[in-house]
Every structure is written in structure tokens, then in C-alpha cells.
């Protein structure tokens, strides 16, 4: 159990997240085939495999590690996922500026800053069946759980994101390649929201271990 992570541990955290996304390629492919063009999984795998490579350069601070992750994702994932998840990590990294470790406050700040940046970049809001429907509840839950420490904050964020992704099943797609599906998009979760929940689940698991 970690109540704060050093920069070295932060690199391991991001490696664990990346490995989990890479390992989840088939799940994400299937989710995207239902309502999109089926390339979400391989794009995310490309982006997060690049994060693993980038982390070999051993970024020295928490902020630098998150920023490096964002840069790698944006450059290699491609597509909407690359722009959105790249923005999340790059812009969210600013929450760790000047901090020597990753703690509950930092994690909550990362989710909040990331949320704002993604909303601005993509022009979407919660309720439109995107990854924001996992990220927004996660950011809110993390902010509330902050006083209880890092493991509790990570747990709360992961649980909210998972619930949020599940909730996208009952939303009609309004953006991205699914949006022409109309009511046919009902019953299927948004792939980006599923990815967001996987990222936070991996963070929770690393922090708890």
C-alpha cells in the first residue's frame, strides 16, 4: 500500500497502466467494433506501448513522467484516442508541478486538470457518451476521497470511472464514429470510457499492492 509515490514508483505506476491497456487490446477492439470502426484497441495499444518505451528514458519527476506519457500517447496512438488521452496525460501532468511525489491531492488534481483540458480539446461534455462520462465522475470522486489518502482516492476514482463507463451503455452516441448510430448505440459502452476505467483500475491496483 502506498500513500504517496516517488518518481521511480510513478514510472512503475505508468508502466502498469500501460501494460494493462496493451493487454486489453482484444477487449477494446470488441467494444469499438460494436459501435465504431474497431480500431480503438489497436490505437490505444500503440499509444501505451510507446509510453512503455518513453519511460525507459527515466523522467525524473512525477510531472515529467505523466507529461512523457501524454506526449507518447499523442504521437503514437493516433486518432481521436491519441488526441484525447494524450491531452489528459499532458495537460493533467501540470497538477504535479513542483511536487516531489504523487499523493492523493496530486491524483485528484491530475483528473480535474485533465478533465478540463479534454473538454476544451474535444468540445464534448459529460452525457455525450465519451470517455468524459468515466473521467468526470472519477475526478469528482477523487476530490471527495482526497482526505482519506491515496489508496482510497485511487479506489474511489476507479469505482466511479467503472460505473461511468457502464452508464454509457444507456446513452445515445453524439460524437465520434458512433454518432450516426442513433438508438442503435444503446446497450453498448463507449470504448473511450472503458479505456478510462481500465487506466484507473490499473492505477488503483498498483497503489494498493
Amino acid at each position, binding site marked *: 500500500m502506498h500513500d504517496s509515490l516517488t518518481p521511480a514508483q510513478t514510472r512503475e505506476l505508468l508502466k502498469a497502466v500501460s501494460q494493462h491497456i496493451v493487454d486489453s487490446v482484444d477487449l477494446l*477492439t470488441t467494444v469499438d*467494433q460494436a*459501435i*465504431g*470502426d*474497431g*480500431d480503438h*484497441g*489497436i*490505437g490505444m495499444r*500503440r499509444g501505451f506501448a510507446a509510453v512503455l518505451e518513453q519511460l525507459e528514458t527515466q523522467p525524473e519527476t512525477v510531472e515529467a513522467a505523466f507529461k512523457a506519457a501524454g506526449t507518447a500517447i*499523442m*504521437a*503514437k*496512438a*493516433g*486518432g*481521436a*484516442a*491519441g*488526441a*484525447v488521452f494524450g491531452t489528459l496525460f499532458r495537460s493533467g501532468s501540470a497538477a504535479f508541478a513542483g511536487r516531489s511525489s504523487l499523493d492523493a491531492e496530486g491524483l485528484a488534481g491530475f483528473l480535474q486538470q485533465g478533465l478540463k483540458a479534454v473538454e476544451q*480539446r*474535444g468540445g464534448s461534455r459529460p452525457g455525450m457518451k465519451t470517455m468524459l462520462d468515466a473521467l468526470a465522475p472519477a475526478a469528482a470522486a477523487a476530490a471527495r476521497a482526497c482526505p482519506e489518502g491515496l489508496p482510497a482516492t485511487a479506489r474511489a476514482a476507479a469505482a466511479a470511472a467503472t460505473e461511468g463507463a457502464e452508464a454509457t451503455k444507456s446513452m445515445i452516441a453524439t*460524437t*465520434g*464514429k*458512433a*454518432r*450516426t*448510430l*442513433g438508438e*442503435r448505440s444503446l446497450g453498448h459502452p463507449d470504448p473511450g470510457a472503458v479505456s478510462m476505467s481500465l487506466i484507473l483500475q490499473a492505477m488503483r491496483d498498483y497503489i494498493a499492492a
Partner: protein
Amino acid sequence: MLIGGGSGHEPMFPGFIGENLADGAACGQVFAAPAPDLVLAATKAVNRGRGVLYVYGNYAGDNMNFDIGAELAADEGINVRTVRVWDDVAGAPPERITDRRGIAGDFYVIKIAGGAAATLDSLDEVCRIAAKARDNTRSMGVAIAAGSIPETGALTFELGPDEIEIGMGAHGEPGISRQKLTTADAITEQMMAAILPDLPFRSGDEVALLINNLGATTMMELLVVNRCVRRILAIAGIAVHRTDVGSFLTCQEMAGLSITLLRLDDELKQYLDMPAASFTYTSN
């Protein structure tokens, strides 16, 4: 002019680099928008000091990545304007036209903007003309069988052997209506009934017509559809100035096609009629 988007639609986009066409294409992974650093590198490669016009299909991924690229280019002092193509009438109702996808109509905007960019001194003028071409273009597609993403081998959608999907997107993303296979004439009439009122195209209009192969359809079938479209247009009192038939924006091995109409005025005709040459397309 820089064009681009996901790979997997060849010849779109690299097949339209050339004389009086685009100066470069930023190509992402199959069906995925190019990353911002690629967009920036391509922008710098084609920039000649008078600014760069981006022309690409209206998709969330392309919009975000090209926007980031444009911001990076602006940081380096390069003036960028953008025209997104949203010609697919199946994508959204007319009141939400900016929600529509870009499909084969990309070709007309690229050809006209390419001619304008080769002729004019002003980025703003080229942008205006490209936007006018975009505003007067309407398309719709139909898919008979799915294409696949090479990396996974998986088909991008499932369609029964006797089913078709009207309004199919150019990536195999589901369209607006799944129905039983019927004759080419019946399908064409259905698609034209959606396209014509959308602009609307009216009696007395002059158009350019594009019958686009989405991948695996035979030329014979494209020509059968063309014949039906010409019959419908003749009854509607709409003259056809030029026709292009072939593979312009495909989706791997998807079987299907799209119909695109561009309403012409003298200015659009001037640029559309300019000779053009690329490794895949020639027009005298």
C-alpha cells in the same frame, strides 16, 4: 494545401497530391487521424510562406489532431486555415450539417481548392472557394459487404449475405438503415431521394457527378448506378457537366459505393475543370 486523415482509404489522400491538387498529405494509421507532430511536419514541408490550407474529412480525431497541428504551426509563424468536408447526408439532419462526416466529397473540395491554390495569391480566397465547394457537395454511400482493418483482420461490421447498409460511413462505421439487398436501380432511387432535397438540387442546376467505389465493387455496377442517376437527374431537369467514376475514397475491401453531387457555378467550374495529375488520377 495539406490534406490528410486516416490511411485505409487509398487513393484518398496521398493519391491526390500533384499538379493543381494538394501539396502534401498527412496520413495516419489505418482509419486513425494523423498525430499532431506529423501534421506539423507536413505543414512545414508544404509551406511556401503564404500560409497553408488544411482540407480533410470532418471526424473528431482528424479535427482534434489537425487543430493541434495548426496551433503548433501558428507557434512557428505559419498561417493555417481549415476547411472540413461534411458531405455525407446520412450523417446528420441538415440543421446539424457540421456533425456530418466527410466521404467521397473530399475529392471535389481537394480538386477545386488545389486549382485555386495553384492560381491565387490569397489564402483567404482559396479558403473561401474551398468552403463554397464543400457547401455545395452532397453524398451518400451504401455498403454491401464489410472491409477489414489489416492489423486485426476483423471485419469492421457484420452484414448478412442478403443485407445492405444505407448511409454506411467510409470506415465501416454503421450507417442509418440496414435493409435487404435489392436492385441497383431501387437502391439508387432511395439514395437520390435523400441526396437531391438535401441541398436542395433543383431543376436548372448544373452538377458534377462522382460515382465512387468504396473498395470491392465492380466497375460494371458503378456504371449501372451511374445510368440510373443520370435518368433521375434528367427527369429532375439537372444537367451534368462532368462525371467521374472509380475508386476515390475506399474502405479497404468494403463492397459498396457512394454517389456525390456538386452543384456548380462559374467559379467552381473554372477550378474543377483545370487539368490535374497525380500518380492515380489524371484529368485533362
